[in-house]
């Protein structure tokens, strides 16, 4: 079961690259299969075909197809990174579970 992630920031460049690398580390350690696509914050409202969106800075933008949006700033600055990692893994596991149940 592959989890499809989107990482988004302002330009889709600097912070996205940093946060993407961190997420890769986390998920590889947990042996979770995933794909990551970079995006811009202005694009996340209309994204489809993803399971979870991680945004690098604060935003109130929501996704129109109800894909959950997490604020991944802690992975960029390092402040609160552990708490975020826990929350993030919980969310990823929930998605895995959900998709397993959806198509057994």
């Amino acid at each position: 079961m592959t989890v499809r992630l989107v990482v988004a920031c302002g330009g889709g460049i600097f912070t996205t690259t940093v946060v993407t690398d961190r997420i890769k580390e986390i998920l590889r350690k947990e042996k979770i299969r995933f794909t990551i696509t970079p995006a811009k914050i202005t694009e996340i409202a209309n994204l489809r075909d993803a399971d979870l969106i991680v945004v690098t800075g604060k935003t109130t933008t929501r996704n129109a197809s109800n894909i959950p949006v997490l604020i991944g700033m802690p992975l960029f600055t390092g402040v609160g990174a552990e708490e975020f990692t826990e929350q993030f893994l919980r969310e990823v596991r929930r998605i895995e579970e959900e998709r397993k149940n959806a198509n057994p």
Partner: protein
Amino acid sequence: MQTLKLVLDLFGPSIIVPLVVFVLSLFLKVPRKQAFQGALYMGIGLTAFNIILGGLMSSLAPVVSEMVKNTGINLPTIDVGWPAAAMIVYANQIGMFYLVFGLAFDLVLFLTKWTDTFHPTDIWNYYQFVFWAAIVQLSTGSFWLGILAAMLMNLILLLIADWLAPSLQEYYGYDGVTSTCYAPVNGAPFAVLVKWVLMKLRLHEIKLNPEDLRSRFGFWGEPVSMGVIIGLAFAILAKWANLGSVDTWAGVLKTAIVTGAVMAIYPAVSGLFVKGLIPISQTLNTRLRKGELKRKNFYIAIDPAVFFGEEATLTSGLVLIPIILALSILVPGNNTLPLADLPAMPFMVIGIIAVMRGNILSTVIAGALWYVLGNWANSDIAAVFTQAAVNVGVQIPAAGTMVTSWAIGVSPICWLVYKAFAAPATVRALTIAASFAVYLVVYFLFKRNRIAWQIAAGASREYLDRVN
């Protein structure tokens, strides 16, 4: 010295820049593998951008020169985006030199407590003012005048960063950070003045609804469709006289696809480009956060991307895109067609919005005025920008067309410094001395009235009491 120059010329920036970055990274204790990968990507990014720019110019330049010839719209300069300025910086020795020299200078300023902002974590954004130093060198022929100009712009930037820090922290809700990226913050002092006027006129009380605006202006947040539409509109204008023929329409549609492609491809390439400096920034950031540095109050410079998604920032940026486009055509004295940097507009208002405490109307008014001034600055340096680009190998296929990086060129503050340093040789010593004197006066006024200034920039007294 002669041999060094030969070696530099022989290998070229795509080899030398990664090498400098690699050595610098190792020196700053970045893990070797990360340092190597990052440096490699930077070289690749430099090369990739050069190739893309070539493709873009060969299709766009003829259309723009036709537009100038056939319509009243005199915008012969194409905005090729900020990566062009970064490329110019790193293809010149001054850019490579300042990575090392500027980092050392910033450490000295920080450790002597001349400033409270720790700048090197934002090393990637040095290029925004070093670009202006590169054109000082180009105009004066002096490497050291360029370095001196870079130092002054660095000092001014840190002054703004110290001044704005509590306002940014409180508004965006991130403690202990500031921004040292010229494009987003250099409009903040101007915004302080505009806010004062708007408060007198009672306009600052008007609140606009961000959600409503976002749905109206959402289109401008989709860079690819925006690129296609702008390309289409300008190509139709350029070929207005021959719209009857199929050939013309083939050309028009191709231009639209090229401008769309620019928007689609830029983030990918510029992503490669920044990879070289990310390990340095991240390693320094981790070491600061771990408390290796014993100091009570300081601000860590952070990439402005973390501010971008905030609702009022995003909304004001999107609203400003069509306004800036219109002003660029309508207000005399501008020669640049904004294009590749337009999607960066929410970045360009970050400092202003913090001063305005999220008031969208005030931000849009201050932003529009500031970037009219910015357009004049950018237009003034378009010729020397183009010269600098040609010097590093960019081909300009149509005579009379020029290039700039809009986001980098629209900085009235850097423009003033540039003018002081590039003044006629007879008065240059005087103008340079005057520019340093102005900086020092503002610096000491700020030091003396720190709290009042930070409140004027938007921070609340409660917040300042809490953090100080």
